[in-house]
């Protein structure tokens, strides 16, 4: 038990560094794809430190609460994943954070952040069923929602749930606000609705959001590592490959509308999920 908590603590402490490097890599790779040199690898750390050191300026106190809960939910979700806890609970804690951020965007009477929040609600609607279906898939295989039971499987998830590798990649693109899904705000400094849902967060609040993004990135990649838990090297390579796919997708596609995004994920995404689930029901051992 103690060891579990210590591992989780270590993961929580290490995640921002790992996430920062990956985010920096993302920016460098994106720049190279655009035949630019791009920023230093550690650029995300500079940005976050600078934002923390800016004067605190806000429209209301609720914004502060919203970003702190957002960060807390990301940290908690990561800790729960590392501790091998219930994945469904994890998803809802993750959703809690996102909803609080949306409410933070809603809490200012600002045209841009309001519209960003409206759209973020749809983004949430678009990816949430995919995430839950993924977790249900693991339940069919293991008879439990816990991540620990996935660790116990002999066969990598990616072999029994290949479609969910694709849906998880889509979810990652949506959660990271990458093209073509960057409707509510953009991951980079592309300007959509100014900065969309982030428009009214400034200085330290924005720093907290950026920090939470680092956790989110690690968490999303952690989900994919889970798909090849039997060999962590393969798992990490798979995760990085998915991340690379998201970056390439971001650079080769244009921003689409919310309606398109919703339609796409609920048709193609859910069809993929349903097909894989059906296969699992047909072949997989449903215990009890």
């Amino acid at each position, binding site marked *: 038990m103690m060891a579990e908590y210590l591992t989780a603590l270590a993961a929580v402490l290490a995640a921002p560094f790992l996430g920062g490097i990956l985010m920096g890599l993302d920016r460098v790779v994106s720049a190279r794809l655009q035949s630019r040199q791009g920023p230093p690898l550690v650029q995300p750390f500079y940005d976050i430190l600078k934002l923390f050191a800016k004067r605190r300026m806000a429209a209301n106190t609720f914004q502060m609460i919203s970003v702190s809960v957002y960060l807390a939910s990301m940290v908690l979700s990561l800790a729960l994943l590392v501790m091998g806890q219930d994945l469904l609970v994890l998803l*809802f804690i993750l*959703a809690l954070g996102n909803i609080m951020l949306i409410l933070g965007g809603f809490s*200012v*009477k*600002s045209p841009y952040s309001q519209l960003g929040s409206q759209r973020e609600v749809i983004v949430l609607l678009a990816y949430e069923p995919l995430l*839950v279906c993924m977790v*249900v898939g693991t339940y069919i295989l293991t008879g439990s929602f816990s991540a620990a039971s996935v660790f116990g499987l002999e066969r990598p998830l990616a072999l029994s749930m290949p479609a969910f590798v694709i849906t998880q990649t889509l979810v990652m693109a949506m959660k990271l606000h990458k093209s073509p899904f960057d409707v509510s705000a953009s991951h980079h400094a592309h300007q959509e609705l100014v900065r969309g849902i982030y428009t009214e967060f400034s200085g330290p609040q924005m720093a907290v959001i950026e920090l939470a993004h680092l956790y989110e990135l690690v968490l999303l990649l952690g989900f994919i590592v889970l798909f090849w838990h039997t060999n962590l090297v393969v798992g990490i390579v798979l995760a990085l490959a998915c991340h690379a796919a998201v970056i390439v997708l971001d650079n080769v596609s244009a921003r689409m509308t919310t309606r398109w995004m919703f339609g796409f994920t609920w048709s193609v995404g859910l069809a993929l999920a349903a097909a894989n689930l059906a296969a699992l029901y047909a072949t997989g051992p449903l215990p009890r």
Partner: protein
Amino acid sequence: MGLLEPLLKISPLTLAAVLVFSPALFGVVVFAVRTKWSRKGVVTVAGWVLTLAAITVFAIAFVSRTALSATLPAKAAPWSMIVAGGDLALLAAILVIAVRFRSAMVFGVALVQLAVVLYAELTGGHAAEAAPSVFIDWLSVVMVMIVSVIGSIIAVYGLPYMKEHERHLGIDEAGSHRPGFFLTMLVFLGAMNGLVISDDLRWVFFFWEVTTLCSFLLIRHDGTDLANTNALRALWMNTLGGVGFAVAIVLFGAHAHTYSVQALLRSPMGAAASLPILAALACLMFAAFTKSAQMPFHSWLLGAMVAPTPVSALLHSSTMVKAGVYLLMRFAPAFHGTQLSNVLAIAGGFTFVATAFLAIGQTNAKKILAYSTISNLGLIIACTGLNRPLALAAAVMLLIFHALSKGLLFMACGVVEHGIHSRDIEDMQGLVNRMPLTTLIMVIGILSMLLPPFGVLIAKLAAIEASVHLPLAMGMLVIGSTLTVAFWTKWTGRLLASEPGAVHPKIEHLHVMYFVPLVLLTVGAVAFSLAVFPLLTELVEPAVTQYYALVPGAAGGVDLSTDVLAVPWLLVFGVMATAVLAPVLVARTRPDEEVGAYMCGEQIETPNGSGFITVAEQSCSLSIRGHYFERYVGEDRHTLWMSLVAASLIAGMFGSVAVR
């Protein structure tokens, strides 16, 4: 334990009498003695009496750990005559109403019901005398607690509400309709208690019809044309459900030769049940669908929102509509393992998804609450249909948490409505600046419907876990849960959308009889959520296990996976509480400077709040609206086909009887 010993000696019949008759008696007093203070006093005292009686029932059940049951001597009175007379009197009342309001629909349905009831009376002679018998197991205790405690809180809240309501309508004290209003409310509370503690189906049916009538009277309380129309719709739909109930009684009498629920549950049921018995169960489901306003009968509950808010809070979210799901939960072991049960799960799941979908397009706060209520009832029905110990545990928890949160939300809505004279959530924009206290309560209420660590979510987790064996139902639960997030988040967003600069709002004054009920339910929702796991393992689980002991082959405890319990909830709660409180408590995280929204540098202050300068130096005040996706989720686009699907699912329920 020693202190509680004397409690066990209290006869269940005494308690039953207090629970059923005391509210009615207090109601008569309120009706007869028409002064302001007597009304306040009597309703409050009635609330206390009911609450204490309910707590006593709870304590006894908790100490004795068995179901309480008792029956009055069969010879003491012509019971069958009494209950039959009651039924007929109610039907006569409905017929009179039908004639008075010239409603052919109500008249026709009531006539059909009359025919069935008369047939039952004439042919059911071989059954035993309908002596009132009381059976209080854990499910009944939960219902009694909800009805008596939450019901009392809402009734007390109704006192200042109705006063203000009549002041708005320009009705003075002399012409006040309040005595009748509180009489009906209190009679309803008694009937509801009777419904959940009676063991004899004939009595359950009688109380069922009393609640139908009370609901009609309360919906048409304001007497407007709209109120009358909607009340009549509620009446005919519920009376139609009553027909289903009466047919079920006839079938049970003819083929099982008993009307006692407990005796029925012990007779061959489930896969072993004969065709007429299964048909009777399907009829009960039909009745439950009307009472719990499942699609396609949901329109009556939407219409019922014209009633004053305490009515919506009490009858149309916390208690009366729960009668339907209660009946299904009560009979769940009886249809365990049948196709009927699976179809029930799908039908409930369909309403869950469909109404959550329709709720997204609504701007009327009470209508959103109504849709959400229907949706949650659908979820509870789906859980009942899944018919596993875990699913039923989820259903019981949903009963409790939904009653708390929805009662709270309706009451908060009522306060807001009197504050801003609108129930449109667009008008509630920035309410946090105008009514910060009510907004806080409302936001807690909303978040308690969808976020961890609140109980509704834990129940949903359990429901999803229980549904894995029925993939279609599972898909519905997953999608429905997601849709639910959308409309609650959008609503909360409107409440919180504040004008920059107006960050130090003055806390509004609330009438003490608003404040206390609101705070009680808020504290209740939070406290029960924090105690959700003890509640589950200590109370719900043993009860449900006992429940399924009746069913051969369905034994096994509530297997809410130890995973959920193993989550370090203390850590989760701790981190979340810190995250919420830190910015509030630590002065260092307060903003150094408060600035307005970014509007391309064109922002200005206008008399109507923030605004901007537009072309030709015109100043323009900023107005923002939520997006409700009317084009995609509009009621008029979807209600028809959804109702048709739901109706065919109900037909499927009857069809599945044939194939088992």
